């Protein structure tokens, strides 16, 4: 059934359809309407779940780790400062191998205060071991939450997953969303059956002291599970497509990348704008493509190298900045392309709620085509839209 709704309500419906047992939340803009919708559905009896309003995001994640240990399917959602406050328990969820699924409405982190969208909050958590999937639209948010449970709870994966939706741009913008039936979802998503549930008849220690003699090996198992997750994500999407008729391009979606002179790598909703501009440029005979970085963890290095075979000039759109030498996505793409003869440039833009307009995208593609023609980059990082006194953008 198609309904008009924002990505937050789409995420809440996904939690309902996934038959989530425990949802522990703490409100934060722009995530709050996910929690509100969940509370509403639980109160009306549309969803059979334990809804817990916690005293902080740190407690919300802690509660879910506990609930997951006894075999509950668990859900929360957060953003920005809330995700940062959760950081310690994000690490714990990974180490405890709890398959928690959490939509994050990506937002700037203060200070000073900024409640609007960018990717800094989720990028900051890239090293925790959580899988990270960036969505382009509201439908993809609903669908990805369902796929995320299937992958996270796979006995060979057992890792938590962040489903990332751009704050306000998706979280508060209404679009058509096809809500699947419960019967369809039940066919796609089996019940969660942990291998080592907390059970009085089978006593064991969970999360006890790990001595130096085996810590390395348990960290290695997490690394291995992230690697296995690559194939599991593709499998889940294939099974999803068979039942629901929708798919999203796996780890990285190639859009008009074949024979391109220049390709822009983009994650999240800005990919839609980039595709729109690419369509227009193609009509004008300008050969540009868009590679939508859908899965950021595990990082699709193979898919990026395939990109390097399609075009020599590659731009990366970073909606955050990792202080150091270039944005996070740029550096990961650059590192994956290391064996190749690529020309790479970082475009930092869309920070703290500033719109990524068609004009910005046109500027980026023009810049990339110029670089492709000249065969070299002028500078590594460009802050697109920066008020620098020029009339460039």
């Amino acid at each position, binding site marked *: 059934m198609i309904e008009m709704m924002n990505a937050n309500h789409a995420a809440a419906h996904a939690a309902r359809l996934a038959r989530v047992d425990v949802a522990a939340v703490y409100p934060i803009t722009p995530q709050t309407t996910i929690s509100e919708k969940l509370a509403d559905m639980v109160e009306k009896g549309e969803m059979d779940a334990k809804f817990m309003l916690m005293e902080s995001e740190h407690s919300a994640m802690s509660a879910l780790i506990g609930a997951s240990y006894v075999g509950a399917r668990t859900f929360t959602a957060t953003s920005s400062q809330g995700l940062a406050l959760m950081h310690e328990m994000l690490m714990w969820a990974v180490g405890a*191998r709890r398959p928690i699924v959490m939509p994050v409405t990506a937002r700037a982190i203060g200070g000073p205060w900024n409640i609007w969208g960018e990717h800094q909050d989720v990028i900051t958590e890239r090293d925790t071991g959580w899988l990270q999937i960036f969505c382009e639209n509201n439908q993809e948010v609903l669908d990805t939450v369902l796929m995320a449970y299937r992958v996270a709870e796979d006995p060979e994966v057992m890792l938590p997953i962040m489903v990332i939706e751009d704050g306000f741009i998706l979280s508060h913008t209404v679009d058509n969303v096809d809500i699947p039936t419960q019967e369809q979802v039940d066919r796609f998503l089996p019940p969660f059956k942990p291998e080592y549930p907390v059970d009085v008849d089978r006593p064991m220690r969970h999360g006890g002291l790990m001595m130096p003699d085996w810590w390395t090996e348990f960290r290695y198992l997490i690394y291995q599970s992230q690697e296995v997750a690559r194939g599991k994500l593709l499998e889940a999407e294939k099974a999803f497509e068979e039942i629901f008729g929708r798919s999203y391009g796996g780890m990285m979606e190639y859009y008009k990348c074949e024979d391109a002179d220049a390709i822009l790598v983009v994650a999240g909703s800005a990919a839609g704008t980039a595709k729109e501009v690419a369509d227009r440029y193609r009509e004008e005979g300008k050969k540009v493509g868009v590679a939508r970085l859908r899965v950021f963890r595990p990082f699709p290095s193979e898919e990026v190298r395939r990109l390097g075979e399609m075009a020599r000039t590659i731009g990366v759109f970073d909606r955050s900045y990792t202080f150091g030498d270039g944005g996070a996505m740029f550096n990961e793409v650059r590192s994956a392309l290391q064996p190749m003869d690529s020309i790479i440039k970082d475009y930092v833009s869309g920070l703290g709620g500033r719109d990524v307009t068609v004009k910005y995208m046109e500027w980026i593609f023009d810049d990339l085509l110029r670089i492709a023609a000249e065969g070299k980059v002028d500078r590594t990082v460009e802050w697109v839209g920066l008020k620098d006194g020029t009339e460039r953008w």
Partner: protein
Amino acid sequence: MYKTYKDLPAEPVASQSTEDVMTGTWRTIRPVLNQDKCIRCYMCWKFCPDMSMTVEKEGDYPSVDLDHCKGCGICSNECPRGAIKMVREIL
């Protein structure tokens, strides 16, 4: 026991007792009981945060489980008769 990472359970769980984990190795001082002064009040047994002060049966003198005692010195501090001395470990 496990030989390689392939033998490990997928989740960090342990089915054996914590008694099997030898955590006493980082101790630098150890409690030594003077039985002449000990009145067997078992304050040391009550206060030990690691259950490392053991009493087999009522009336026995307490003894120290050195596989798990971390050498915190709480027993020595709480003993009303000063019967437990903390002595430096010689390696």
